[in-house]
């Protein structure tokens, strides 16, 4: 962890000292954690509106009081980008909501997004004093982050960050996911002439085509993109770097440095018999059809499969998003099939809870071994095998072991395979000199995010092989700093 002195300094400002005295720590710890306002479970499983409704001002003010403004704010060490958590929460406590948003934006380009999708229970909230020392529910850091960011957005007083005068140096960002957006924001602030190239027809990466509306409304992402535009970032959709133009073409057009944030877009399948039957999709295909192409809306041309029983294979966020989408598209039975137990699911805890409330069935310790199709080639059944848990494996989770003779058939109308993704190979395969790992991720210097090709930097899922929004953004920002150093050095030499 970096030096915390910056936070200490802020913490000793008079108003913070005074604020701490307004309520005894003991009293603060006796307060109960606030619950998020949510749409009713039955109602929401039939619409695509956001499930979480946010905190009211009153609720935010109360929850902010729970935070003890610790001398040693361990929460910060749990946040991958080191947000000054008590710093923004105490601004909320004194009703300076715009001030809170400002603190967030010092480190986090997209707080409205992270407040919604970060796995807080594994990150900041898991390191909160309440969790660690008091064994009580942590301060609702994620909810408060969302509150401050939403307040700012709805206030009409969204601050457009100041940018340095354009220095005319062209930088290309490849991919418009959280990594690319974060990098573009910092680079344009430093004064670069920044263009983001995106393969799809929409900006936002997984935030748009993957994570559904009921968890992250597109509008929130669009507002951020609009702000980037106002700051001077240019966007080119329908442009695949490595295909529409090569790195050399872009260099010839004057681009002096590149940030690759091309994500982990390649879906994995299980390679079991019958997997190419009609009605079996990757979660990427399923979610893209629904989210990006709006397939469930009759006014749009892209079709999607509906059915009474839809099985989703996997236990991550992508699986939860797919199964809850299936439910919203009218499935009577929307079932998660996961080979480990529910405790071991990598999905955010809140999503699993929401899914359960919405009537999603969980078949844990089950794994498909074969798909059976009807005469038209459409999947009609899956053969499932029961599993039991054995010894912990390298990841520390107990290894699932198939139980012999436990196989049985289950009727299904459609199956969504959500067993992970691999890095998008488009960029690595278009550059011979680029050093990659055997998994296809790009090798970078951890401090600068520079790759083996000097003018190319990378971050997010293409480097990590599948991570989180906040880690991708953190990488984007680190790379922006790396690119800045690299270009300033280059300018000096010339």
């Amino acid at each position, binding site marked *: 962890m970096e030096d915390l002195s910056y936070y200490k300094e802020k913490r000793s400002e008079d108003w913070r000292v005074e604020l701490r005295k307004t309520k005894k720590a003991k009293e603060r710890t006796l307060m109960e954690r606030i619950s998020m306002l949510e749409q009713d479970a039955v109602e929401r499983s039939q619409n695509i509106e956001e499930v979480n409704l946010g905190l009211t001002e009153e609720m935010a003010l109360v929850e902010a009081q729970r935070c003890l403004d610790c001398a040693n704010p361990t929460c910060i060490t749990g946040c991958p980008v080191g947000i000054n958590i008590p710093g923004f929460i105490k601004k909320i406590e004194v009703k300076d909501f715009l001030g809170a948003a400002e603190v967030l934006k010092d480190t986090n380009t997209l707080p409205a997004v992270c407040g919604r999708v970060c796995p807080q229970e594994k990150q900041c909230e898991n390191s909160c004093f309440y969790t660690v020392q008091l064994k009580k529910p942590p301060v609702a850091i994620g909810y408060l982050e969302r509150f401050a960011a939403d307040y700012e957005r709805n206030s009409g007083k969204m601050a457009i960050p100041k940018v340095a005068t354009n220095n005319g140096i062209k930088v290309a960002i490849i991919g418009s996911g959280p990594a690319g957006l974060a990098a573009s924001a910092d680079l344009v602030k430093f004064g670069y002439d920044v263009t983001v190239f995106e*393969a*799809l*027809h929409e900006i936002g990466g997984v935030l748009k085509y993957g994570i559904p509306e009921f968890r992250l409304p597109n509008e929130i992402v669009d507002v951020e993109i609009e702000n980037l535009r106002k700051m001077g970032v240019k966007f080119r*959709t*329908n*442009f*695949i770097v490595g*295909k*529409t*133009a*090569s790195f050399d*073409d872009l260099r010839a057009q004057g681009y002096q440095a590149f940030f690759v944030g091309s994500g982990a*877009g*390649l*879906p994995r*399948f299980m*390679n079991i018999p019958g*997997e*190419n039957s*009609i*009605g079996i*999709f*990757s979660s*990427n*295909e399923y979610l*893209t*059809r629904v989210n990006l*192409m*709006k397939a469930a809306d009759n*006014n*749009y*041309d*892209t*079709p999607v499969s509906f059915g009474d029983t839809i099985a989703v294979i996997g236990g991550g966020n992508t699986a939860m998003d797919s199964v809850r989408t299936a439910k919203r598209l009218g499935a009577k039975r929307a079932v998660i099939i996961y080979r480990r137990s529910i405790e071991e699911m990598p999905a955010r805890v809140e999503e699993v809870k929401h899914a359960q409330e919405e009537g999603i069935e969980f078949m844990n310790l089950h794994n498909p071994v074969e798909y059976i199709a009807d005469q*038209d*080639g459409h999947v009609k059944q899956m053969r499932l095998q029961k599993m039991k848990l054995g010894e912990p494996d390298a990841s520390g989770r107990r290894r699932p072991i198939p139980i012999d003779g436990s196989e049985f058939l289950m009727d299904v109308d459609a199956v969504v395979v959500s067993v992970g993704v691999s890095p*998008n*190979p*488009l960029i690595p395969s278009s550059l011979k000199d680029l050093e990659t790992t055997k998994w296809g991720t790009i090798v970078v210097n951890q401090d600068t995010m520079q790759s083996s090709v000097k003018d190319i930097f990378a971050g997010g899922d293409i480097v990590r092989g599948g991570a989180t929004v906040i880690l991708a953004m953190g990488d984007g920002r680190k790379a922006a700093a790396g690119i800045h150093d690299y270009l300033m050095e280059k300018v000096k030499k010339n």
Partner: protein
Amino acid sequence: MYKIIEKEFFSEKVVKLVLEAADIAKSRKAGHFVIVRVDEKGERIPLTIADSDIERGTITLVIQVVGVTSAKLANLNVGDEILDVVGPLGKATHIENFGTVLAAGGGVGVAPLYPIVKALKEAGNRVITVLAARTKDLIILEDEMRKYSDEVIVMTDDGSYGKKGLVTMGMEEVIEREKVDFSMIIGPAIMMKFGALTTKKYNIPTEVSLNTIMVDGTGMCGACRVSVGGKTQFVCVDGPEFDAHQVDFDEMLMRLNAYKKEETEAYEKYLALQQA
């Protein structure tokens, strides 16, 4: 936005569009395709780049009307704009001097075959082209093909033009007459299946260009997957061209029908609206 600057009907259901897409024109090679989204509510469909003109910054598409999106495209006029065009996608055709090449194109498959025939001829091959369609009016790009082929054989199902019979008859005629070193077959899946069986009989190395259903065209969704040699491949990034003798055509034919019902309904609705 990608502006249409030329439009020509080859037949009632087959239209040629030339549109502005300077970046794609510059980087495309024979065998590449684009993904097109006509308007805000449109779906993304793949179309082969039949030709390009770097100076004018244009690409040429040849589209057969089979459903809503292709019909929407055919209804556009010069001056209209297509919302999204992305590419070039897929792997370019492997071009070398094989010796004698037998190129077979069925229906609108002649469009993607054309740039390949051109490239093969320019690489020094002797190129014999078989063009096939149901009937005379559906034979397209014949003059263009003649320009880059040493010989063109035309086959129609009903005998209204050229010789009467299926594409495979025309192919066998050539194979029995002279040594063929390589064959390229592009057309409807069923035609490629039988074309592949024909060249397999004679052990002629053969490639086909597959036209599976696609969404993104960049390897992200897996909608386009087919089995080739028992392994799952993504047509948009691993193809679209594959060893014809390894492709599981039956699986591919089946997968092409994935949305048959929805597509037919949507097309009928679209036609009804057009008439209203």
